């Protein structure tokens, strides 16, 4: 619970390079997420080049601060083909992978922020992502300038319905 409650969306980063092994731990956490029908539809594009991050920032209004790394989480549509109405499930799989990543990052002192506000067509083009792979979400990673205060949570009494709604 400490990681779950302590994680924040970090939008201001200080300088500092995330060690490669920590980044790999974060990515490993992602692949241990559950996925519908065990499709594991994800592909992750890891971007560390400052030049490329700056180019991606041009098309990502939801990306704040200067993260050390960006991970673009994509759905490989080939992996969900023929599995019925799986596109929505695949997006949920991506969300679960992203949460795993962000919790693992937090446990290593790394701040993160999930970003949906970016132009998918532009990012696909910039990163040479093939046609059958769709970027869904980005996660920015870096050392926080500060850990933000927790936003208010809707209380359990309001959102949990026992036995019946």
């Amino acid at each position, binding site marked *: 619970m400490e990681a779950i409650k302590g994680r924040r*969306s970090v*939008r201001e980063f200080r300088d500092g390079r995330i060690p490669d092994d920590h980044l790999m731990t974060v990515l490993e956490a992602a692949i241990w997420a559950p996925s519908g029908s065990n499709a594991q539809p994800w592909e992750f594009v890891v971007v560390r080049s400052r030049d490329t991050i*700056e*180019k991606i*920032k*041009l*098309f*990502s*209004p*939801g990306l*704040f601060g200067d993260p050390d790394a960006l991970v673009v989480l994509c759905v490989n549509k080939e992996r969900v083909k023929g599995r019925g109405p799986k596109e929505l499930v695949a997006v949920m799989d991506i969300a679960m992978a992203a949460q795993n990543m962000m919790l693992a990052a937090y446990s290593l002192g790394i701040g993160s922020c999930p970003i949906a*506000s*970016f*132009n998918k067509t*532009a990012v696909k083009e910039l990163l040479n992502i093939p046609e059958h792979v769709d970027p869904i979400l980005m996660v920015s990673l870096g050392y926080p300038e500060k850990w*933000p205060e927790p*936003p*208010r949570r809707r209380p359990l009494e309001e959102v949990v319905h026992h036995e019946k709604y």
Partner: protein
Amino acid sequence: MRNIKDLIQDEHFKLLTFLITSARGCVDEPHLYGPLRLVDAASKLIKIMKQEGKTVDELDRILAMIEEKKHLVMYDEKEFIKFLDELVAELVKIVKSA
């Protein structure tokens, strides 16, 4: 004419791509993200004006307000709208004092 590498590092060009990308993004995003993108663009514009030596203390204060409060949109819509009102009030002060 400047080359493309210089162009993509130009702060005006960065603002231009931000505006156009935001225009497309706002079609699908929550309606308050429109105001967020606009104040974020304003912040970028003030930073450009600063680099060009065109700001005054009052404008620097507006920049600080935006940077401090723009993320309220994610946490407290009411406060975010109040903050937008405060920004307009600050601008009026500048114009009135001219």
